[in-house]
């Protein structure tokens, strides 16, 4: 299965390593024309403002939407989740200077919802909502200056929460996590993306 990892900025290599472990054929994507034939695209962790601006500069926003209309799935982690959101909250730099986003998942996202870096944390996450095949033990999730999903539309399934805050959600062929499964050695969420979300 051909999967692309958006390689403009962030921890795209960690995603590529993990996807290969799960048996995917992975390519790093730096230009829109490299997306031909992809079943899915991962938007990695990184800085959402930087990735958003680089996406905008090279015409990724429309190119991804076109691919998605043709059936491509998406998985965003942290900054990637921010870029998939329909609406963003938080962050003074949003005033008068809109952040370029894809806006594909019907959710409202607050950036840096847990505070600054000193408040970044690890926590055990109950992922039983992903189904029997992926359950068994909690997922050790790494949250770094993490966003939070504040509200979701009717088509969005909530798959994980930390202290009542939604941090893992799926809408059809789109999956979004506020944390970084790619920084751990636990491949369950990547497998879920390949086996369930893209199925």
């Amino acid at each position, binding site marked *: 299965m051909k999967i692309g990892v958006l390689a403009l900025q962030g921890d795209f290599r960690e995603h590529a390593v993990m996807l290969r472990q799960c048996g995917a054929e992975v390519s790093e994507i730096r230009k829109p024309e490299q997306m031909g034939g992809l079943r899915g695209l991962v938007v990695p962790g990184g800085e959402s403002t930087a990735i958003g601006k680089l996406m905008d500069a090279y015409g990724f926003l429309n190119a991804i939407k076109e691919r998605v209309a043709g059936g491509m799935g998406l998985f965003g982690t942290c900054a990637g989740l921010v870029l998939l959101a329909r609406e963003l909250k938080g962050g*003074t730099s949003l005033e008068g200077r809109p952040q370029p986003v894809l806006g594909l998942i019907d959710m409202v996202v607050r950036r840096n919802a847990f505070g600054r870096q000193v408040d970044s944390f690890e926590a055990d*996450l109950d992922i039983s909502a992903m189904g029997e095949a992926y359950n068994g033990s*909690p997922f050790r999730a790494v949250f770094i200056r993490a966003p939070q999903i504040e509200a979701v539309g009717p088509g969005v399934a909530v798959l994980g929460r930390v*202290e009542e805050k939604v941090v893992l959600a799926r809408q059809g062929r789109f999956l979004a996590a506020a944390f970084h499964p790619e920084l751990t050695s636990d491949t369950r969420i990547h497998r879920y993306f390949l086996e369930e979300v893209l199925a």
Partner: protein
Amino acid sequence: MATQEKGTFLVKKGLAEMLKGGVIMDVTTPEQARIAEEAGAVSVMALERVPADIRAAGGVARMADPTVIERIMEVVTIPVMAKVRIGHFVEAQILEALGVDYIDESEVLTPADEVYHINKHAFKVPFVCGARDLGEALRRIAEGAAMIRTKGEPGTGNVVEAVRHIRKVNEQIRHVRNLSDEELVAESKNLGAPLDLLRQVRDLGRLPVVNFAAGGIATPADAALMMQLGCDGIFVGSGIFKSADPARRARAIVMATTHYNDPKVLADVSHDLGEAMPGLEIATIAQEQRMQERGW
């Protein structure tokens, strides 16, 4: 249910992972911070003066006034870093209390301790430190640094020292990769580097934390050069706001860092940037004026 565990090494190192492939820019005012963020910087380093001005001013250079740092933290959503003097753990406590996202224990400032660097394990906030070779990098990681950068020679706009430092680290890593267990012990003594970290380097084939380029980067080509030499990302100090057109240059360096392997893009972004910062030939800087010699 879920208890939150803060300040773990994974969380500290994790933020550096998120900055990879990006550019961290030195800024001295909220306006500059906005320009940097707008250009696509992944983080800003809040300072009272950029290294070129620190070099010119002479005297003792210290942590910035918290007001400067806070004003910058207020206007951007990207992480904000700030510098402390080598060994000055109280300056670091102050920056942690301010909520700074990363601390640079930096040779750009005047060292506060000639023997000991800060015990960085004692902090929840992560640290980045400079290194000229593998031994120095691993000593800093042993003290708790979650990110490494080349020292280069700050404030010169001359990339030669940063190149020397990354080439040295690369060469030493290549050497270490071929060592047997007993040879590794001897090499640990030789480099003055902890054995367990050296073993990790051998097994991983790289440093166990993210390694950025810093010290003398002034052009998009400099940034791409350091990326092609294997750095994970770029610090630009004086190079942006000491140039003629900071916004344009900042954006060009961001583009060059992403597309470092694409000469066509590099050619595109290198056009019409205006004057770069004035450079300094390293040989003209007296030994005791070289910032890279600070720390061990």
